[in-house]
């Protein structure tokens, strides 16, 4: 079942490449159909899901790959990965619908995004470090071609910077993986076995180095301050659906790595260095928000809010490593909030980047100062933008609130100093309200003149993402019931 979900898009991508005679229209709709089928499969998976035993995975599949180094094709899901798998299929479906209107080599574009979808899903279900690394690297390759091939502005340069920077991170990650492999006895790359063994327990220096390598790799991907400098140019020059996937899905690979690899496999080192992680999280939150506040380019602003939002996740998982007997419950809440934030940010940021794509397509500029009074011309766009902005800044009733509320409840209980990061929420609220005001209110002027409202494909791409955010905000139990058991297990693994 999992393999089908992961490789269905890849098979479709190969079929699209092998059938050059297929018309552009057919290719676009085939992409939508496959992405929708994957959503349906994941929905079925979600309904059949039962939380697995502590330290185990549900829907496991395992086949030999390179037995010589104990690396296998091992996949499975639990409460940490299933929500991300579901979010990934939804974001890719939204991109497929949005791209129904795109005219630039639609067949190749569809194949590339289907490839990226397989890679992203594969990463979230991987239960083997080498399998994880394979998908991690291929996501970089795929996104490079998306930015270089369909981007605008200085796309070649931004794509190159993105590739070099994140590839550096991925190799740091690989160094850490090899360190884990060598330290394990018997040597293995299997995540489940490594989490059981915690191979570097007791050797604090080696553990610190391996954790440092893994953290560097994940921090570049997430990205946290000071490794975030590749993000703004990559987003600014990427096509709308490329940005949506990059921010919505690819960034989660970094934060997912924290909860899937770093915390359960290196609990001792994680506890020892938890303060550093908390500080990096706080700095990312505040710095990301402040820099976003200074932007005049709407897309760059959303890109920097990603640094801020990922900062909350880092903060929460760091706080989960500050172990005290009376904070077990609080740390578990923080981790639950972190995973919820990953899902919430994926949905909301993808929607905001698609909105940015609509602006670029109509007016050719992201400069907020060039717009004004757009609500008059495009009321549907204005409504969706408002919902997205409120979800992003954490208004109750939307998913961002559920996530950030839990993150702060848990983190402040475990480490009161994290309250400093509340400043980030304040700044984010200010910058989104300011953006709303500059673009949509006032007299219709500049780029807003002659701006057409959302077309059906755009509406049906952006709308459902925000509707899901609303659903999570109103009925959070649907999501939290899946995440909470896994978060408790994780907190217990870190505390051992």
């Amino acid at each position: 079942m999992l393999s089908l979900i992961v490789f269905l898009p890849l098979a479709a991508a190969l079929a699209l490449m092998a059938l050059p005679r297929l018309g552009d229209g057919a290719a676009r709709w085939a992409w939508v159909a496959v992405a929708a089928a994957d959503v349906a499969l994941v929905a079925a998976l979600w309904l059949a899901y039962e939380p697995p035993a502590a330290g185990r995975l549900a829907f496991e599949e395992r086949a030999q790959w390179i037995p010589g180094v104990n690396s296998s094709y091992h996949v499975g899901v639990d409460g940490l990965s299933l929500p991300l798998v579901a979010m990934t299929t939804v974001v890719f479906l939204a991109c497929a619908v949005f791209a129904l209107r795109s005219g630039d080599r639609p067949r190749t574009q569809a194949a590339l995004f289907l490839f990226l979808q397989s890679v992203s899903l594969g990463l979230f279900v991987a239960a083997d470090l080498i399998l994880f690394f394979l998908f991690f690297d291929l996501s970089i390759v795929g996104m490079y071609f998306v930015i270089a091939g369909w981007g605008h502005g200085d796309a070649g340069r931004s794509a190159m910077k993105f590739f070099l920077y994140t590839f550096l991170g991925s190799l740091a990650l690989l160094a850490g993986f090899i360190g884990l492999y060598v330290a394990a006895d018997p040597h293995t790359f299997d995540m489940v076995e490594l989490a059981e063994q915690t191979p570097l327990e007791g050797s604090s220096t080696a553990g610190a180095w391996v954790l440092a390598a893994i953290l560097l790799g994940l921090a570049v991907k997430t990205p946290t301050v000071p490794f975030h400098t590749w993000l703004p140019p990559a987003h600014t020059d990427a096509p709308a659906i490329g940005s949506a996937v990059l921010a919505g899905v690819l960034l989660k690979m970094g934060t997912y790595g924290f909860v899937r690899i770093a915390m359960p496999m290196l609990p001792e080192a994680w506890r020892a260095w938890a303060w550093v992680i908390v500080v990096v999280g706080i700095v990312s939150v505040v710095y990301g928000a402040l820099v976003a506040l200074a932007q005049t380019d709407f897309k760059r602003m959303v890109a920097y809010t990603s640094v801020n939002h990922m900062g909350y996740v880092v903060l929460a998982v760091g706080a989960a490593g500050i172990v005290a007997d009376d904070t077990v419950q609080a740390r578990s809440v923080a981790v639950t909030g972190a995973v919820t934030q990953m899902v919430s940010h994926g949905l909301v940021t993808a929607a905001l980047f698609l909105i940015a794509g609509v602006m670029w397509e109509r007016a050719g500029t992201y400069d907020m100062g060039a717009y004004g009074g757009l609500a008059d011309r495009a009321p549907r766009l204005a409504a969706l933008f408002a919902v997205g902005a409120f979800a992003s800044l954490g208004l109750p009733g939307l998913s961002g609130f559920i996530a950030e509320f839990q993150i702060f409840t848990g983190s402040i209980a475990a480490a009161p100093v994290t309250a400093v990061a509340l400043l980030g929420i304040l700044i984010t609220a200010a910058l989104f309200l300011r953006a709303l005001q500059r673009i949509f209110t006032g007299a219709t002027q500049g780029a807003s003149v002659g701006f057409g409202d959302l077309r059906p494909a755009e509406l049906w791409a952006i709308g459902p993402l925000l509707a899901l955010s609303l659903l999570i905000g109103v009925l959070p139990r649907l999501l939290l019931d899946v995440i909470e058991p896994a978060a408790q297990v994780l907190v217990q693994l870190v505390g051992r």
Partner: protein
Amino acid sequence: MRPALLAPEIVLFLGGLAALLGGSFLARTRQWVTRAVAAAALLVAAALAALDLPGPAQVAMEGTFTVDTTTGVARVVAALGTLVVLALASDEIAGTPRESETYALLLFSTTGTLILAGANDLLVVTVGFLLASVPLYGLIGIARTPLGAEAAMKTYLLGALFGILLLTGVTLLYGVTATTSYAELTDRLADAPAGVVAAGVVAVLGGLLFKAGGAPAHFWVPDAAQGAGGTVAAFLTTVPKIGAVIAAYRLVELLPDTLAWPLLVALLAVASMTLGNLAAYWQTDPRRLLGWSTVSQVGYLLVPVAVAGRSDLALPSLLLYLAGYTVTNLSAFAVTTAFPQRRELRSYRGMGRAHPWLGAALVVALLGLVGTPPTVVFVGKLTTTAAAWDAGYAWLAVLVLVNTVASLFYYLRWIAPLYTHQETAGHHQQDAGTEGRWSRSAAIGTAALSLLLGIGAGALWATFSL
């Protein structure tokens, strides 16, 4: 004697002779017959070697030549690699003067490589070195271009120097141990004066490094890759390394602990990979870029050599890397021979849009050389790095990964223009007639193979660690 154990080498040598003699009696338009003869010899040699592969390790020629899994893998990889080179030749040198001589020299040099790979005696190493090198001098100069002549001269002079160094080393080692056979050297080297052993081994390793094209004996590689024809360039950056690196592995494996040999080889490895990467940065000729890239690849290949015998992963990972590197490097060169007119990175602008399959093959090959999963070089790089770390050389593993990041930049300089919009004026017209069909198939086939071998690396690994 048991000459039957050397059947693949004998078949290749006889095939070379047949191509040479047959070529003298055939009209220029019918020289393809010699190509067919050469291809048949390579196929037979590969088949014989593959049939031998599951058998137990044996020695031939009074214990001077080992036929084990390592030799077997080297035979299969080298023979099939040369077969791909012949496919490139079908486009580039079919119907040219000295066609059959090229095939003969290719086969002789391949034979020399295989003798190096199986050598279990220092004198056999010398024979293999000469048989692999001498045809190469001729091959590099055979195109008779000014650059080719310069490259041939440079290779010849360096080859002569390092050949003499190799002989000196063998003499020194013989002088202190009274034997050249590996079986006896193992014990006697430990008791011999460390200084003389050090000088002798360094000299022999120097000769092998020339053959492999690693620092500090690499100066001929970029010139030869640029100056020689595409066929020859593909051959000389790929096949001779197989024998040389395996010979180095066998030598390092039997060295005593009296000196820090792993450290020395590790430093040579780091020197090769770093130098090759830095020098490749600003190259504009794709073949010269690949030439420097192979220097850095030798550095990665020397990593398992450094930890020979110190990790169970070392030998299988070396063989896996060699096989993967051969396939991937040939794929990249095949793309350059498919477009003989494109001699600058700039001229590849828009190539991927005009030729999607060849563009994809080049992307797979170059990302493969970087070590991106799921290509087979990735598995090679992963396992060699794990071997180094496993043997206690974590710093070497880290340097391999750092160098990998550094190498990405220049490979990307070649990938980036492939999908840009502007097709350089004029190229489109020329390509229609000159896109080599054989090279095209070879490039796509080897690129696909590098993916398949990466995905099926488990089976490969099982074969290599027999």
